[in-house]
């Protein structure tokens, strides 16, 4: 019995070390990635770096202004927000608050499937149904991020809602008042989850190469093309050389920073909503 105990302890220790090793691999690889991108970017002089603030992206003429690309990424992401909120939030409310167990598990399965759709499929679907424009790009991002958004928000609501609903029903309030109460209780979590979803949208490339039009535009129109940071990498990395190649690594770095900031902000909001509840 004693030996068995020692064996278990030793085994536990080994597993502990192993899990620590694998656990640290992830942050280490992120650091390695950032270092690699920074190292690739050092090929640029200070003058080149200031050129990145330019308004024109024409690599064949050595004009590497990143502003239109940032505009494309941010505008397509934010254009998707009304869709995500308008359609995603009611779905999440239904799933998290009103649906019974059977319906909820069916919905969760459907949302899980949608969340797992490869983005090429979504890209081709949107291209076929809506053509090429900023609007299509927003629709593609909406389709990509909404299922996960609905799942996260409904989970959040499930944690908070029961007590609120109990109290509200006890006061004899109707559905609309219940919804208002539940949302106001979880508002920062709902918005935080939206930012996390938006961060994922900023990182999307494949679907957008099909539907965004990929023309660098400074002032996008709803029915005109845009070009995002990620699609630029996808379209140009293969043939880029020298300075252009280095600039694309700066673009990659920028995408990472943009996503990390958005998601960090979102997580902060979510954590605030949780501490608020308890």
């Amino acid at each position, binding site marked *: 019995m004693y030996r068995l105990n020692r064996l278990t302890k030793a085994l536990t220790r080994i*597993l502990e070390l192993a899990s620590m090793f694998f656990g640290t691999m992830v942050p280490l690889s992120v650091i390695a990635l950032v270092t690699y991108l920074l190292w690739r970017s050092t090929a640029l002089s200070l003058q080149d770096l200031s050129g990145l603030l330019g308004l024109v992206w024409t690599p064949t003429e050595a004009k590497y202004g990143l502003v239109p690309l940032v505009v494309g990424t941010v505008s397509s992401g934010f254009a998707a927000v009304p869709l995500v909120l308008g359609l995603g939030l009611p779905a999440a409310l239904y799933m998290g608050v009103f649906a019974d*167990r059977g319906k909820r598990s069916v919905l969760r399965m459907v949302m899980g499937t949608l969340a797992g759709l490869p983005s090429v499929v979504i890209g081709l679907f949107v291209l076929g149904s809506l053509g*090429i424009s900023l609007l299509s790009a927003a629709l593609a991002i909406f389709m990509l991020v909404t299922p996960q958004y609905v799942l996260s928000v409904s989970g959040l609501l499930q944690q908070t809602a029961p007590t609120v609903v109990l109290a509200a*029903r*006890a006061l004899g309030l109707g559905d609309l008042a219940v919804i208002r109460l539940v949302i106001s209780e979880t508002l920062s979590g709902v918005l935080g989850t939206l930012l996390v979803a938006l961060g994922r949208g900023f990182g999307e490339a494949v679907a957008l*190469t099909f539907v965004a039009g990929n*023309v660098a535009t400074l002032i996008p129109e709803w029915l005109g093309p845009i070009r995002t940071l990620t699609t630029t990498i996808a379209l140009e990395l*293969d*043939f880029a050389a020298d300075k252009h190649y280095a600039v694309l690594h700066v673009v990659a770095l920028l995408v990472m920073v943009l996503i990390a900031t958005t998601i960090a902000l979102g997580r902060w909001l979510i954590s605030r909503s949780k501490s608020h509840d308890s």
Partner: protein
Amino acid sequence: MNDINVDHTENHISSPVIECVQLANARKWTSVTQIYQFIGKFCLFHSALALVLNLSACGDSSQREQLVITGASTPVPILMHAADVMESRNPNLRVHVQPGGSSKGIRDTIEGHNDLGAVARELSPAEREQVHSIPIARDGVVIVTHASNSLTSLTKNELFAIYMGEIDNWRTLTGADRAITLVHKAAGHGTRAVFSQYLGVKGSQIKPHVVAGNNTQVIKTIAASANSVGYVSLADVIAAVEIGTPIKAIELEGVAPTLANVANGSWPIARTLYLVSKQATIQSWAEAMVEFLRSEEGSRIIEGANYVPLKPTH
């Protein structure tokens, strides 16, 4: 009475939620040991997997030989087919074909990342000094619209006006009052270089509505929007039309866009497809690939893929 009603509603709404929470609680790991059991299984499985993968990889490198071709996406159908035939005759050979644009093909060749580069445009003088080029086939670049467009032919001047934005509506050409959606290819692609050269402009002078990455994407884009116009390899158009994609190729300067017209030299935007290598003497499998493509059998494969073979040299 009222009280009972409220009570009832409460239960109805909240009981599934409570049950759910209870279920989740019941499923939670109750002890640390269980977590480690899980991690343990995970680690064992993955180390076993890694071991198997390593072993098979070792087997690969000791017995198999490989030929790596990167570059233009245009000749990929030819190269894939030729690779299949060569692999079936030499079981130890693996041919990797990776499309990514002509410029990448040349750069990879110069940097030694491949055995052969594929190029779908003429080489620049600077490129000619650094790599050795071997012509393998001829191809036409054709103008494509949606199948529903009533346009049947264009002159070079009209094409120029469309691509320079002087004609931006189909009205003057077909009578249909619809804005033209101009499709261009991303920089670095041979098709773009050949097309721009034909119009006598720089690729960056064209202000498109859509920039597409490869030939397939151009075709998908045009099939999806009724008012678009683009340019793409004739072979890709023939293949796409065969499977029912709603696009069509347009006559240019009164010449029909057919393989026969590319072969006899009357089609105005034709190009030679090349394989390039770092030196004139090349790796034996690369040599075998070039010889195969120049043989009678290779010519049939090239024709089958809707390109024009060069006459066999011997």
